Structure formats: structure tokens, C-alpha cells
């Protein structure tokens, strides 16, 4: 029956033509090509802008950035030839300290939201709060951190005050990426695990978290990028210039981004301020690029480990 019908359609072109006249088919094809071209042009535009920015920064600062006397050197407040060693240490120190505080809290809260709270009123309030927090400009967090941590808690300009401030910025991101990652683990896994007699916590620990690990670590690494690039929130909580690397969490520091801002705005006391600022910017950019690459690698590694690919 169907074969007969198909044969009739094939031998009778008018049947096909009635549905889709040739002119209309041609126009559809033309529009298709045009749309593809426009989309391609826009994506190329985005790529060109990115290449232009990265190119400019590297052109002005790459040579300085890769010089050990610069990236491991001592900063100078008045003379030329200063380096940025303590700034790099500050940035890494701050990142580590922030993650130490925000990861356990953020991942814990994210798992709670995805696995336990789900649709409750408390959960939607928390979600709304997190989404709102993540749109607040970081200078607001900076002022808040200064008032609360630096002054009220008496921490002074310190790594700890900065890390606590960055935690406020970071927490919503980690919480939401964790929640999304946990939520995207199929329910069929949970059912199978519970069906085998596993408790809820065993299911989360042995199955859900390992399956969500790719998403959680990607989120964490991307939030590292945000920490390293943050300046406004740290100017009034950590500091903008130091001569020695911080050791104790109560020591002040000068994270790279905050230091760059400082040099550009008031660093003209040293003659080679532009060299230092450009070199530090290039170094920071390379670091952030490396982190993004790392995020990809980690996510790829977990996916491979789970057997999703390859």
C-alpha cells in the first residue's frame, strides 16, 4: 500500500510540485545560505575582537612578563626595575584561602539544594538570593567587606579579609554550578542505587557526586579565574601594594589585578610604571588563559573517566 503510494509520488512530479513549488524551494535555499553567512560573519567578529585584545596585551607586555627578574623580582615603590613576585604570591594565596572557605560551603549548599530542598520555599528563597548576589557589582562587596571584616572584625587589610569578601562573590557561583551539575545527574542512576539498597547519603557520595564532579570542578576552576581577575573588591580589603609576600592570613597583600589598577592610577612615581603595568597585565592574562585550559582538561578528564566519551 505505502510502496504503491511512494511510487505514484515519484512518477508524478506534479504531486510533489503542488506541495513545494520550485521557486519556493529555491528561495528557501538562498535564505539558508544567507543566514549561514550572517551567522558566520558575527562569530568571526567575536573571534577577531578577542584576538585583538589578547594580541595587544601580549605585544606590550609578554617580554616583560616572561623575564624571571620581573615575575620573581621585588617590587619598587620609587626606583625603576621593580618586579611583581609578592603580587603573584598574593593572588595565589588569596585564591587558595578563598577556595578553602567557599568550596565546602558552596558545594555543600548546592548539593543540599539539588538533592534535599528541591522545590521548598527555603530553596527558592536561597536560589533567588544567590542569583541576586551574583549580579551585585564587586565594588559593593569591597566596601561591605571593608566595613565588616576589615573594621568591625578588626582583621585589617589582610588576606583573610579579602578571602572572606571574595567568598561572598564566589559562593553564589559555586552553589549554582554545583546545583546544576548535581541536578543533571539522571534520576535513573539514583533509582538504581536506591533500588540496590543504598541509603540516600551513600547514593550521593558514591554515585551522584562522582557523576557531577566534572561540572563542579569546572565551576570551581572558572571561579578561580574570577578570583584572580578581581580588583575592586580587594582594593579596600587586602591592599594594592606590598614589598614582601604575605605569610600569615592576617598579613596584607597586593593581588595582581588590584596592583595593576594601582599602578595605572597612581603608580607614576616610578619611571617604568608602564612597563610594570603592561608586564603584570600580560602575566595575569596568561594565567587566566591557562586556567581556562585547565578547566577544559579537567572536565574532559572526568568525562573520559565516566566513560561518556572515548
Amino acid at each position, binding site marked *: 500500500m505505502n510502496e504503491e503510494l511512494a511510487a505514484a509520488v515519484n512518477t508524478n512530479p506534479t504531486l510533489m510540485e503542488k506541495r513545494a513549488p520550485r521557486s519556493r524551494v529555491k528561495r528557501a535555499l538562498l535564505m539558508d545560505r544567507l543566514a549561514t553567512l550572517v551567522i558566520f560573519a558575527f562569530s568571526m567578529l567575536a573571534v577577531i575582537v578577542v584576538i585583538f585584545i589578547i594580541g595587544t596585551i601580549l605585544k606590550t607586555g609578554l617580554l616583560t612578563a616572561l623575564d624571571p627578574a620581573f615575575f620573581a623580582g621585588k617590587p619598587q615603590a620609587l626606583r625603576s626595575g621593580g618586579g611583581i613576585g609578592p603580587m603573584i604570591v598574593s593572588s595565589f594565596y588569596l585564591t587558595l584561602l578563598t577556595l578553602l572557605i567557599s568550596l565546602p560551603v558552596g558545594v555543600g549548599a548546592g548539593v543540599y539544594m539539588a538533592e534535599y530542598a528541591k522545590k521548598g520555599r527555603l530553596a527558592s528563597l536561597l536560589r533567588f538570593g544567590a542569583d541576586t548576589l551574583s549580579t551585585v557589582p564587586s565594588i559593593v562587596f569591597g566596601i561591605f567587606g571593608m566595613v565588616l571584616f576589615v573594621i568591625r572584625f578588626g582583621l585589617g587589610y589582610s588576606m583573610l579579609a579579602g578571602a572572606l569578601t571574595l567568598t561572598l562573590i564566589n559562593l553564589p557561583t559555586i552553589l549554582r554550578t554545583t546545583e546544576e551539575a548535581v541536578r543533571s545527574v*539522571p534520576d*535513573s*542512576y539514583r*533509582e*538504581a*542505587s*536506591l*533500588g*540496590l*539498597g*543504598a*541509603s540516600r547519603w*551513600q547514593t550521593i557520595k*558514591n*554515585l551522584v557526586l*562522582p*557523576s557531577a564532579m566534572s561540572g563542579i570542578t569546572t565551576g570551581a576552576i572558572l571561579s578561580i579565574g574570577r578570583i584572580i581577575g578581581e580588583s575592586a573588591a580587594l582594593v579596600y580589603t587586602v591592599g594594592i601594594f606590598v614589598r614582601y609576600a604575605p605569610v600569615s592570613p592576617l598579613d596584607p597583600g597586593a593581588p595582581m589585578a588590584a596592583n595593576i589598577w594601582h599602578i595605572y592610577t597612581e603608580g607614576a612615581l616610578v619611571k617604568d610604571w608602564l612597563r610594570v603595568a603592561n608586564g603584570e597585565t600580560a602575566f595575569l592574562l596568561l594565567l587566566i588563559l591557562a586556567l581556562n585550559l585547565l578547566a577544559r582538561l579537567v572536565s574532559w578528564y572526568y568525562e573520559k573517566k*565516566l*566513560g*561518556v566519551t572515548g
Partner: protein
Amino acid sequence: MESENNLSEIKMRSVGLDLYYGEQKILENITLDIKKHSITALIGPSGSGKTSYLRCLNRMNDLVDDSKIEGKVFLDDEDIFQNGYGVVELRRRVGMVFQRPNPFPKSIYENVAYGPRIFGINDKATLDGIVEDSLKRAALWDEVKNKLKKSAFRLSGGQQQRLCIARVLAVQPEVILLDEPCSALDPIATQNIEDLMAELKSEYTLLIVTHNMQQAARTSDYTAFFMLEEQGKPAGLVEYDDTSLIFTRPKDERTERYITGRFG
């Protein structure tokens, strides 16, 4: 029929079971005896509550918000819905195989070892033994013994479903619930699963939900026919008997109409 030898031995029994999802009553008054070391097939049109019933037997319905049960379900004469009954232990004893093969994103070995690990077995030699034994029982060992460390996702659909059965066998259940285990499989894989069920019958009690009339007739000893009389009303059990009787001389006219393909 061979299972007539142990007709008297009842493994599970539901008495006047009602199931609610929120306000809506899904199942009404299901009274059914499931005999030990036999295969019981649950048949009926879509939406007739077969799967919902199956999920009462290992309390998987507990996971659905506002599900409520009235009536009783017994496993070896113990009410599984009584206060303080261990759900975790129940689910170990009453295992479940799902409609779509759902292996964990882990290696073949780790899939089977998952249950034993949950119960605290960490000794390598013991786990190796359990994994090998379970895969052999699930008739999968020969196909996977050289790639135990490979991802379970690399297996075919039929192999994945047998892996899921091996995963259940590894926790030494007494009853195995199979929810349309072949609906996503091709005929040859289906044949494999059916052969496997016949093998497993001697040691386990099996319940299978199926839409495939031939499958019910081929594999089961007893058949229960479920039906939804009217949309919005709860589904019920129409008839329950030896499979040979259900398919040759059904007592209820609705059963006859269903198995002869006049509706559903």
C-alpha cells in the same frame, strides 16, 4: 507445570492495596499472592498501574512526593509498610531491573561491585568472586571477562540490561522485579533476557511487567491482568491465574478481549 510443586509457598503477598499519588487514587484493592521460585507476569494496557504496583513491592514509590499506601504488603509474612521496617534492607532483598538499561557511569566491574561495596565488602578477592559469580549468573561473563575495567556504556543495550541484572544479583536478592526489561531491546537481546529469567527462576522469585503478550505467555507461570476501567478512576486487578489458564480459558471477558488484541 513445575511450579505447582511449591504452590503453597508464598513469597510476597499484597492485601487490599491502595496507592495514592496526592489526591488521586492510582490503584485500588490489589490482592495478589506471589509464589516462590516462579515468574509472575503483570500485563495490561498502558496506564493500568502495573509499574506502580511493582514499585510498591520494594517501596520505590516512597521516592514520589505525596505517595500514600493503604492496605498491606507482606514479604515472608512481614508487613513491609509497618513502622520501623528497614527500607534499605527491603530493597536489597527485593531487587529491581528498570525499563531502560541504566548502568552507572563506571566500569563493568564497578557496576556489579557497587551493591556489595555499599554493604561494606571491600576485600578485593571477595569482590572479584562476587563480580564473576554475578556476571556468570546473568550470562554475561563470557562476553565481558576481558574488559571488566571498560566503561559499562560501551556495552550494547542488551548487554547493559544483563549487566543491570548482574548488579542486582550481586546483592543476593530474594525477589527480582523487572519493569518491562526488554522494551528497549531487539529480539535477540530479548531472547537472551528471557532465557536468563528461566534460569534464575530456580533460585529467585521474579515479577515482570510486560506489554508483550507473547512474552508473558512464554516466560511466566502466573499472570495478573491489570486494567484501568475509566480515566480518572483507579486501576485494578481484573484476573490472576496460571498463565496457561489466562491465555486459554480466561474467566473474565475483559481479559479475553485484551489478550486476543481487541483493545489496549
